[in-house]
């Protein structure tokens, strides 16, 4: 299953995140996870939200540069070695990760690891075969 991550291009200056969270809060959109990649004067803010399509629309309307990006949200156990199983598998299959981050769903039980990889279809199929559960937009927002 494919999930969507919102990527926002922003200058590296104060108030930028507040502007984004302000717009999302007003639209009652829930943020599940965030990461920021910074390169000197600009950055890319990545968000997993419960309603990515509406979030994209309202942020664009607010004049921001937004892109909806396909990612895989993989369900893993929140236990020692939980992430390692997934990483070893991707490594063995020669899949390169461009960006990744995780968040806990239920402490000591369930976590989600979001990966942005080159070969999306292949990875998705592989994870399915090996018994990993990937979450789509609906199941992400239901949590």
């Amino acid at each position, binding site marked *: 299953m494919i999930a969507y*991550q919102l*990527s926002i*291009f*922003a*200058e590296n200056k104060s108030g930028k995140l507040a502007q984004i969270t302000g717009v999302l809060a007003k639209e009652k959109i829930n943020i599940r996870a965030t990461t920021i*990649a910074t*390169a*000197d*004067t*600009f950055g*890319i803010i*990545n968000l997993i939200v419960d309603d990515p399509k509406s979030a994209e629309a309202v942020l664009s*309307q607010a*004049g*921001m*540069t937004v*892109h*909806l*990006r396909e990612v895989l949200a993989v369900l893993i156990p929140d236990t020692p070695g939980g992430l390692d199983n997934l990483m070893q598998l991707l490594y063995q299959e020669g899949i390169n990760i*461009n*960006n990744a981050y995780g968040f806990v769903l239920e402490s000591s039980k369930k976590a989600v690891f979001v990966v942005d990889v080159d070969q999306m279809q292949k990875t998705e199929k592989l994870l399915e075969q090996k018994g990993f559960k990937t979450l789509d937009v609906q199941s992400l927002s239901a949590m």
Partner: protein
Amino acid sequence: MYWEKNLETIKRAKLEDLQLGRLKDTIGRTKKSYYYGRVFKEKKLGLGSVRKLKDIQKFPFTTKDDLREHWPYGFIAVPKDELVRMHSSSGTTGRATVVFHTINDIAVWTNLLARCMYMAGMRRSDVFQNMMTYGLFTGGLGFHYGAEKIGALIIPAGAGNSKRQIQLMRDFETTAVHVIPSYALHLSTVFEELKLDPREDTKVKIAFLGAEPHTEKMRKKIEEIYGYKAFNSYGLSEMNGPGVAFECPEQNGMHIWEDSFLVEIIDPKTLQPVPDGEEGELVMTSLQREGMPLIRYRTKDLTRIIPEPCPCGRTHRRIERIKGRTDDMLILKGVNIFPMQIEKKLMEISGVGTNFLIILDREGFNDLMTVKVEVDRKYFSGEMKQMETLRKKIVEELKSEILITPKIDLVEPDSIPKGEGKAVRVIDNRKD
């Protein structure tokens, strides 16, 4: 096809006769002004000094500084009662200069603009939206009068208020616009915001681009976004304003109206005339002006005469699009750079948006150039790698053009402040 066939296709020899007669009249008139009266006396110049067109070279140049020093009335060649209008330059480079017109001056200027717009294809059936500032600036009123003379329906929209511009364009089915090129690009982002496609959702087929030198790449970009033909226009308030030189349907150089202006190109260093085809500073003498005639006015604009005849049949020579202004030139680490060179390169790179800003700083004895470049909204895919590649590509491309390694800051679309007039391209923070 021609507004005034006889004048536009006049034989060169006849044109030169006309010019010589008008030059003599001009010399006769100018000596009545305070400034030229004194200069002619001092240099022993007068009507007798002009027997052929080349004799113009005996006369001294007039510069913007001369205009400023004899501000406001030192160049007036008629009694003040005869003046009906004043215009003022944008003051891009220091104190604004003022130009005065008689009723005849306005009529001649209006006719030149009608000639330009007709040449580009505008007719009385057109709906013309004038998106320029009305007021002291010559661009708004100048085009307004020209369009009225043709008989088009004019929407005097003025500058700014982008959403209203688009609304007017759609409500009244505008077919021709007059717009500053950087504003045309800015406006395209507003179309995007409104989820409108200017190619589908408007009926504009002709655009007059004016008030700002721009590159061929920028014209192409604008034509592509809007699906209209964009014509380059040249003018300066000291020579009326717009309507000095204009592109014909060939879109290859601008015909400079030689029945109204005597044209020279000089080497800005030696001040000697250069042969046709060579680049230099454009120098002009007004041939029909009464209120404030000017002799050998140094425009500071760099261009060249295109010597070949134009297939359109007009005999007035063409000038190439303005390469830059002699006073726009930046000197960085001893290298001469024109902002237009940077614009040209940037427009070639996919991923670059509509606007940029050059910032110069000095650290110790070192000059630093930073270029803020807006990113194209459609190009962004959420990948850091992609943005880094774009940044590096811009650095490399600019380095190959200007031989200096600039620092490139990628910024969000539409984040560089955009005024209503000429775009600010350079901020120089270096303190001498």
